[in-house]
């Protein structure tokens, strides 16, 4: 049974369709990531699930029950906001215990639960501090502890790592995933950061313009993008798309290598690749150039690992190859994935 399910969920703000017919179903205990650029409706979808917004149409089910019209507190959910939304005038202890107080949990039980949650997160020494006396990482843990004590059926996390600096973010990502696995609570995680999504998600729902464009494991999403949006949104640099008649050929920059580099020599497709610029990034080299398409040249990129030492100079014209199995085909007009086409 799905922990969280949405059926034909729509939310309109005036003329804007923020969420436009989302059918989503999370599995028990999974870490589901909603990924998309800003304004794609992922946060609104999360708020609809939380009950902070009322849907224009469609249903939200939690634990198999329709919860439309129920307030957030009746939905057995816990949520971490992007800003953590700690109560600035309360101590850490009171921040965490607030929801328990609202539920009428007695004092001893509150104490016990707060201690349990804070010891899991390693913030049990901070109970008497106020939020402004905490670091960003500590605040994030307080926000998580606040979720834990409620023993919810689902965690809703809205970009909880975006306020942390890059270094902290990597370790926090790791901790968060470990925590989720340890307590095994179904989690819906909103982010615009594909690294977070790929690294943490059991499954990723890629959203764009209020709709889920593709739902799958990180590998499926990356390797078998369902359309050109997903193909170009994921990957850095994104997938190259070269127009050929009625379709587009897509290939990832890391598969676009100078002729002779791939160990397997058969089944390669060769492109003529005049190079305009080369960026040396240490672990990689990014090579910029153009590939001839049906209606003109298309800017194309190649990412060469530092193990590839073939000299490449701007202004030179090189032959690059892509393994045929790495070519993805999309319909030029709809952008949807199609079967392989003859080249």
């Amino acid at each position, binding site marked *: 049974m799905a922990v969280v399910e949405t059926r034909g969920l729509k939310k309109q703000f005036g003329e804007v369709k923020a969420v436009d017919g989302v059918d989503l179903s999370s599995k028990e205990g999974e870490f589901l990531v909603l990924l998309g650029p800003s304004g794609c409706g992922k946060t609104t979808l999360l*708020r609809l699930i*939380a009950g*902070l917004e009322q849907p224009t149409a469609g249903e939200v089910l939690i634990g198999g029950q329709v919860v439309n019209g129920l*307030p*957030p*507190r009746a939905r057995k*959910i*816990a*949520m971490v*906001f*992007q*800003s*953590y*939304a*700690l*109560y*600035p*005038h309360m101590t850490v202890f009171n921040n965490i215990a*607030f*929801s328990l107080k*609202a*539920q009428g949990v007695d004092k001893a039980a509150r104490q016990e639960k707060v201690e349990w949650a804070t010891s899991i997160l390693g913030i049990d020494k901070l109970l008497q501090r*106020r939020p*402004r006396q905490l670091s960003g990482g500590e605040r994030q843990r307080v926000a998580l502890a*606040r979720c834990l004590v*409620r023993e919810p059926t689902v965690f809703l996390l809205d970009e909880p790592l975006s306020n942390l600096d890059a270094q902290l973010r990597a370790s926090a990502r790791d901790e968060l995933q470990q925590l989720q696995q340890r307590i095994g609570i179904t989690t819906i995680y909103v982010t615009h950061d594909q690294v977070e999504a790929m690294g943490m998600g059991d499954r990723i729902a890629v959203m764009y313009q209020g709709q889920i464009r593709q739902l799958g494991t990180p590998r499926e999403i990356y390797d078998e993008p369902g359309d050109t949006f997903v193909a170009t949104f994921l990957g850095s640099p994104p997938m190259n798309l070269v127009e050929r008649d009625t379709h587009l050929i897509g290939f990832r920059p890391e598969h676009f290598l100078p002729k002779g580099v791939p160990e397997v020599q058969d089944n390669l497709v060769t492109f003529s690749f005049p190079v305009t610029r080369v960026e040396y990034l240490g672990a990689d080299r990014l090579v910029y150039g153009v590939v001839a398409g049906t209606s003109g040249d298309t800017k194309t990129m190649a990412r060469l690992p530092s193990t590839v030492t073939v000299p490449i100079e701007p202004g030179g014209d090189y032959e690059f190859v892509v393994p045929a199995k790495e070519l993805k085909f999309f319909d030029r007009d709809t952008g949807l994935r199609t079967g392989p086409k003859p080249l």
Partner: protein
Amino acid sequence: MRVPGLRGGVRVQLRYLLDREGLLGPLMLLPAIIYILALVGFPLVLAIAYSLSDVTAGDTSLDNFVGLDNFSRIIKRPEFRRALQNTILFVVVSQVLIIVLATTLAQILSQDFRGKAVVRFLIILPWAAPIALGTIAWLWLLDSEFSPIDLILRELHLLGPAGLLGRDAILGTDTNLVWLGRERLTMASVIMVHVWRLLPLSTVILLAALTTIPRDVLDQAEVDGAGFWRTLFQIKIPLILPIMGIAILFGMILTAGDMAVVYNLTRGGPVYYTQVLPTWSFFIGIEGGSLAQGAAVALFLLPLLLVVTILVLRLARRSEVT
């Protein structure tokens, strides 16, 4: 090396004089300092000098030092104790009412509903209208004979000879309540007009304060299962407390220092039962010609307001959370 377009020299330096913060800062502050000295400092010093002399409206020369005579004279007067009590009572009661009502109104106005613009306009109206005009309207509303409020109460059979169901009217069988002729009712009327007058200011201040609360925090409270009252008293009010303190401070100072309401509405009556320090100061200082005693009465406001100000500012600083 000569950089083209870069020139030195005194004239050029003068051009950038105002870019120096050490100079610009004091320069910008100067008008405020002059303002405070001229409009606050000077009158205060003058009032203290007056209160220690025997100046009258006819003879304003400060040539006769009389020590604390003026203070001992006014303290003996029965009006003094009443004016002091009233000043405190009116300030405290009206502020309590204002804060409760302003919080309620600000809550309502922070929601979206049809006709919000009209309601907002109506609420701000008393503040926009000159206070003298407002109190004159109240003078009519509270008239002993022709009060429209009494008229409505009579129509509803809550007042007057014709009660409901053969019983006496709840508010008495007299045809009028005589709002400004009965001690308690008059005091209530004065407080009511103060509330009416300052409610818009407090409401607007609190409304602005409420909008500073991050949406996430309120959403979090909702997710945490806090109902309306818990959210109001444990989240919203603690968060806007510093600004609320400022609203209370403004309200108290404006009420304590106000003479327009009592002057226009009751002139201190009945008897001197609604006299407050500012009006009594005016009556004996200006109408009674004793500038020295008027100044002495007005100076009693100073310690009162000072205590209030210190308390509120300390509260505001303590509850500062960000």
